[in-house]
Each structure stands twice: as C-alpha cells, then as structure tokens.
C-alpha cells in the first residue's frame, strides 16, 4: 500500500488484482447483501466493477461508493466461492482506506465517533479497560437492569438506544488476572506457544482465553502470555484505518519474543485473519518486514493448531464423557472464508465423548456481526442474525459453538431477544470442560 496521502489508493493498487475478477458471477449466490437486494452493486463483482471504474478514472470516489463499501459485510464468502482466486480482502481494505483518505463519508459526527472508538478507545489499553470496568460496575451493580426496567433508555436517541441493547456483559476479571505470564504443562513439554488475549475477547470472554490456555497445557505446550497486550488492529484494517492498523501491529509484535515461541495462538477468528496478514501489512516497513514475515508464519488459530498437532486424536482417551449433548457449529466468516479453517473445529467437537455434532444449515452464511456492522448497519445485521437463529433452531441443538467473539455476542443477543434458550459457546470451551471432567 502506498503511503502518499495525495494519491488515490485504488489507482495506486496493482491493476492485476482488479483484473483478476473476470465477472463470471460465481460469487453472487454466496453474498448476503446481494441475496437481500438482488442488485449488482451490492454484490462482490459489482463492487469490484466500481473499484475498477475508480482505478480507471471513469468514476470519482463518491459518497454512494463509500456507502456501498460499508454496506459490504466483509464476510469474504465471495473469496471462498471465487474460482479465479480474487483477493477480495485486499480490494475491500484498500477501498475502505480510500474512502477514509478521500473523506467522502465524513461528517463531524462520524469523524468524532470513529476517532473516539478506533483511535482512542481501542488505542489505549487503560481507557478500554476503564470503560470495560465502568460497564462492569454498571451491569454488576444492577444499575443496567434498573435503568432498563425504568425505561430510562427511552430518553436516548434511537441509535444509542439500539446500541444500549447491544451492550455486552463485561467479565469481572480480564485475561492477565486469569492467566500467568508463563504456564508450564504438567507432563512432557512439546512446544512453546505465545498466547494472544485480544481486546474484545479479553474483556467480554476472558474465560475463553483461560480455557484456551488450559487446553494448550493439556496438549503439552508451555504457554507464554505477554502482559498488557493491545488491540491487534483488525478492526482498523477492516475499517479503512491502515495507518493505525500498522501502529498496532508493530506494538503487538514488540510484545513477543519471536525466537522464544514456536507458534503464536489466537482464538478469535476476526483477529486471526488479520494477524496472519501482518506480513503484507508491514511489507514496506524496513524495521518490521522480516519480523512480520516470521510472525505470520508462526500464527495459528487454536482449532487449526490443535488438529495440526493431532491433539483431537488424543481427546477420546483423555477427555471424560459428558451427558450426551447435541451441538451445532456456526462457522465464523473470518475462520472459514478468511482462513479456510472449516474442518478442524468440527474434528475437535466430534472427538469429544458425548457430543453429537449436527450440521447447521447455511453454516458458512454470515450471522451479521461482522466487526462493527451490527452498529453501522443494524437492520441488515438483525435480518442476518434472525436467519442464523432460525437455522440453529432447526437443528434442535441446545448448544451452538462458534470461534469468534463477534459471533458469540451476536448469537447470544438474538437468542435473548427472541427468548430462545440457547448456549452459545466457543469450541475450545467445550474441549476445556471435557478435559476438566477427567
């Protein structure tokens, strides 16, 4: 990516990346937004045609183009469907970066919100944790339920009111309090792994990080969890703020001694698909290019890693059977499309004694969480969540497993809204629970 602030980023893009799309249309049936509207501009090949028109200077960067690129979920289902191998991730991130560079969507309110959230909130660990703590107190003290019961949220503007219902439950203890910096397995040590705690995951699902470490220990790994990790920058990379994404990437790399760890583990799909691309993100940075290459080579999703080392084969012997539970599996977009990891979580779940894995219809169809999409496009997001829940209910399973904090939140919320009892859980938690029953 060029850093010249004056240059149109789509025009600076290697043209062959745009040409790779030969507009055969194979992506259309897999695109949730095209499915919703049947309009070509809401499809991957339509969006690429618009990007190409901008690169060719047949179309200026317009507000309408900006809105289109933020209507796109960035679910990457089109990448899985594309026989021609179009790198939509790269095109999508470049297009959003160009929209931010050119400022076609800028309004004082949007600029302020973006700056507050992307730069300040996610940019400062203390601030993020502070907000997290306040939210925790608001919820744990009963104030939230009181406010909701009294109907005080009606005083909020509509948009904020919708966001208030999205407010996730913050955990009492974050990862650094649950996980020691270095933890050593009881038996033989096979590998040393670095553990990524994430930011959203850290505040809302810190117990999943603990579960991940427990499973890694059981798999014979020494686990190093560097203290005070920051956001990985995926939210920024996916939302057109490449500069900030690069800053975060460098900070995170600096937290790890890459020579010390054989593998770096993430358990959040959305982060993983970004973390694996640090090599591309920092390719032009002389100080970081080499380390970023090493980083990307060592990075693994937890599901991917456990199957790679054959841990799932040991599970039936080491884990204790639980009362038969029917589980279905929702594929996070950035795991199945972004990282092409589809079989491994199923292999882990199937290896658990007592777990009956039932296939979810449309398992690879986006649930509408999609980063901050549930905030920016609430209607489309809700429709996708409803479709997903209906499919989950069809399976008759009381538990759905999914490997991304955004999906976990989205599914918990829609089940709660519709009053359906449903356990939404990370696959690694089910593995950890089975191991603990030993």
């Amino acid at each position: 990516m060029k850093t010249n602030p004056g240059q149109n980023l789509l025009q600076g893009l290697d043209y062959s990346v745009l040409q790779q799309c030969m507009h055969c249309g194979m992506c259309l049936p897999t695109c949730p937004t095209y499915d919703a509207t049947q309009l070509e501009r809401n499809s991957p090949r339509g969006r690429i045609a618009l990007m190409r028109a901008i690169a060719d200077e047949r179309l200026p960067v317009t507000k309408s183009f900006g809105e289109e690129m933020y209507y796109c979920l960035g679910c990457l289902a089109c990448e899985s469907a594309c026989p021609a191998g179009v790198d939509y991730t790269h095109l999508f991130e470049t297009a959003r970066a160009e929209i931010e560079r050119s400022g076609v969507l800028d309004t004082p309110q949007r600029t302020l919100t973006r700056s507050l959230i992307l730069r300040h909130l996610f940019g400062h660990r203390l601030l993020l944790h502070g907000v997290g703590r306040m939210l925790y107190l608001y919820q744990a003290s009963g104030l939230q339920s009181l406010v909701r019961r009294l109907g005080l949220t009606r005083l909020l503007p509509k948009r904020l009111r919708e966001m208030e219902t999205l407010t996730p439950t913050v955990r009492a203890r974050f990862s650094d309090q649950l996980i020691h910096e270095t933890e050593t397995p009881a038996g033989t040590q096979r590998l040393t792994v670095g553990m990524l705690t994430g930011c959203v995951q850290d505040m809302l699902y810190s117990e999943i990080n603990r579960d991940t470490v427990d499973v890694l220990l059981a798999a014979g790994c020494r686990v190093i969890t560097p203290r005070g990790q920051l956001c990985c920058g995926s939210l920024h990379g996916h939302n057109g703020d490449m500069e900030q994404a690069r800053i975060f990437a460098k900070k995170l790399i600096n937290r790890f001694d890459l020579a010390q760890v054989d593998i770096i583990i993430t358990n959040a799909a959305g982060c993983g698909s970004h973390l694996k691309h640090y090599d591309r993100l920092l390719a032009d940075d002389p100080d970081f290019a080499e380390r970023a290459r090493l980083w990307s080579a060592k990075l693994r999703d937890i599901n991917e890693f456990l199957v790679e080392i054959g841990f799932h084969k040991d599970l039936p012997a080491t884990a204790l059977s639980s009362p038969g539970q029917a589980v279905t599996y929702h594929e996070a977009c950035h795991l199945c499309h972004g990282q092409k990891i589809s079989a491994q979580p199923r292999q882990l779940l199937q290896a658990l004694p007592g777990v009956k894995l039932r296939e979810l219809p449309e398992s690879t169809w986006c649930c509408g969480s999609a980063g901050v999409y549930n905030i920016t496009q609430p209607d489309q997001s809700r429709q996708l969540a409803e479709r997903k829940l209906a499919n989950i209910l069809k399976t008759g399973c009381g538990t759905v497993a999914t490997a991304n904090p955004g999906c976990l939140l989205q599914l918990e919320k829609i089940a709660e809204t519709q009053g359906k009892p449903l356990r939404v859980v990370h696959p690694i938690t089910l593995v950890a629970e089975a191991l603990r029953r030993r």
Partner: protein
Amino acid sequence: MPELSELRRLLTAGSILTEPEDLIPYGFDGTAALFQLPWAVIFPQTTDEVAAVLRFSQKEGIPVVTRGSGTGLSGGSLPMAGSLVLCTVRMNRILEVDAENLTLLTEPGVITLKIAEEAATKGLFYPPDPGSMKISTIGGNVAENSGGLRGLKYGVTRNYVMGLEVVLPNGDITWLGNKCVKDVAGYNLKDLFIGSEGTLGVITKVLLRLVPAPVARRTLLAIYDDMGAAAETVSAIIAAKIIPCTLEFLDRTTIGCVEDFAHVGLPREAAAILLMETDGHPAVVAEEAAAMERIALENHALSVQVAQSAEESIRLATARRSAYSALARVAPTTILEDVTVPRSELARMVRRIQEIGRKYDLRIGTFGHMGDGNLHPTFLTNERDTAEMHRVEEAMREIFEFTLELGGSITGEHGVGLAKKPFLPQMLGDVSMNLLRDIKRTIDPQNLLNPGKIFDQTPAVA
C-alpha cells in the same frame, strides 16, 4: 432522452436505476473485455410491466437489452449506449410443478439450480446444467439455448422447453407451445425464440419438461499423458454405442487451475483427464462403467479411478464447472471460445488448437464437453497488451476457420452475441443470413430488441 417519470409510472416503485454507481455494475456480463453503460436498468415484476416497457421503447425509439444474472459468455446481454437494461431477476417465482404431466412452469428470473432442486424434491430431473447454473437464470438459459455437461445424453435447454410466454417488441403477449408431448400445429414458433438471444422478444414464462430422476450414477476419472489419446477414447466410447451422461475433457493447464481452487485431488502431472459419468438403471450403469473403463485403458489411459461415493461424484462435477473461472488464476484476461466439431474430428481439432497456440506464442487452456464435440479453448492473456491481443484475434480466426473446415460450429452453447458476430456470415452464408434478417425485421421492424447482437440489421430492400 425521454422523461424518466413516464417510465417510472409503468413500474412498481423502486424498479429503476440511473445513477452511475448503480449502472456500472450492469455494464458487462460474463464476457471478457466488453463494457458499455446503459441509460437505465429496470426490474419489471410482471408480464404486463414488461409489455408496458416494450410499448414505451417503441414509442420513444429506445433499445431494450434483456438480462438475467449477467453470466453470458458472448456479450449477449451487454448493454448498448442509450439502452434500457430489462433485468428479469425480480420475476423469480416457480409457478407450478405438474407431476402428472412432468412439467414445471416458471418465471424467467428463477435460478437454474433452484429449478433442478425443485424438480428433485418430486423425484424428477431437470438435466441441463450449464457451468453457471448456481446463478444463471432460466430465462437467460432459454434465450441463449444453454448447454452444459450432460448435453451428450440429455441434450440442451431447447430439448426441455415445452412452452414460452413471450412479449413481442410491440408489447403483444403470446403463448407458444403447451403441455402436449405431440404438437405440430403451425410453424414451431417456440423454437424460434429459444436461442434468439433477446433479439425477438422478452420471455416472461417458461414451461419446462422434466424427466424421471436416474436411480444410479457412476463417475470415472481417466488420466492420460497425451491429449490425443483422451480424444480417441471419446471416439471409441461413442463407436461402442455407449452414450454416457458426461464425457468431460481437461488439459494440463486447466487441471492445475481447477485443482488450485477446488482441491479435489486431480492429477496435476497428467497431460489430460477425462471425467466420465453414466447414469440410469443400476445394471446398465454398472455395465457401461465397466465398458468405459476398459475402452479408456485400451486407448492408453494411464489409469482409471472410480468415484467411491455420490459426494465424490458431485465434488468432481462441481470442480469441473469451475474450470473457466479457475483459468483466470494464471492470466489477467481469459477469452473463452466455444467451437464444436463432429465427434470424429475431435483429435484433429485438439491438436490444431495446440499448434495454433505455438504459432502465435499464446497460452491456451483447453477443456470442454468432449462427448458432444464442444470444446472451450481459452486464451490466457492480458487485455492491456495490445500486441498480444492482436495475436489472440489472429489465432481465434484460425481456430474458427479450421472448425468450419471440419464441418463444425463457431459456437456450441454460448451464443453469437457480440463475440462471435464477425464469424457468423462465413458459417451461415448469404441466404441464411438474409433469412435471419428477414425474420428479425418481421418481428422487430424498428430493430429495438438487443440490436446489433448476432448480426447487424440492414435496411429493408424496397
């Protein structure tokens, strides 16, 4: 340009696009290197709306280009400057499955795969399976008379159309055909509209013929170190009086690209593979599969693998359907041809394509429906390289000329559209070309439906 407001009155609200960001994505179809912006895109929902739009087009003299999902491979649904694109995707209901007469009545915007799935729920089978069937519309299939992988045994779209509702350029609505198996009343007008590429009318309903679903099927994969041997196997199977459902051919370039995408375990080192499928009664399937395996080995196949499950068969067929798009992995621009020759001439045609590639220093990936003589030599090139594009044109001309020498056709299933228009007169001759023009003039005297596709209309002789 006439007032949009008048057009707006004819259609349901929210059915017209005119902004550049909305129109640019309709400026192309599945064909390489063609782009043209229309004046507007409209989405009618009923036959009456289509009729109203066509009357408007006559009155204002505005050309109308009908489009489904825009997956065509000859530029047939490419807009022309100042034209209206009439997009059928909102006419998307399956209206009836008649299990007593084995027919299915549908609107034109229904996706081909949905029709196949709907038929399957009743134990019936809609055989035509064009490569793009996951997203192509049935209306587009009828207008282009699309083929597919099963053409050899089951024929093409034409063989399954029993009736059509058509809106003529002047807005008149008519039904052609019916549910009768036999019907010789008058000229077969229905057949005139099948494959007419949107130049004679707008298809608003399609009555399809279904057949009982085959009980058994078996898929075989034969591997060769010589392309000619694969072609000879095909000729030998046909000569042995076996008509399999599918006989698909992929060369080495295509095998590599498909494998990169689909990961189904195709042998990258092979010079060619044949994907063969037989379906029908279990006893016949077993017998034919055994015979095809023997014939392939007799014709120097290195090995023949049999798919172990229905899922594996489907995976192989699905991978094959991705061949054209997968070839785009190795070059910025892929230009796909569709020549068809009598099956006895396959080996000569395949060898000649290789020679032409060498002569013009071009990369050509070849795959296709060998069982029905339909080949897809695909130029792997770059539209921005003017010198190479010129060589592509020369090579294409030679391939077409040799095809005609062998008694073949310039297009087996993609249609003439714009891409093959220059070569049609040579194939048909003056008398047939004039007949085409006379028919077009009779039905569309103002030349407003998809003008300039297939051929250019000439002024009527006084």
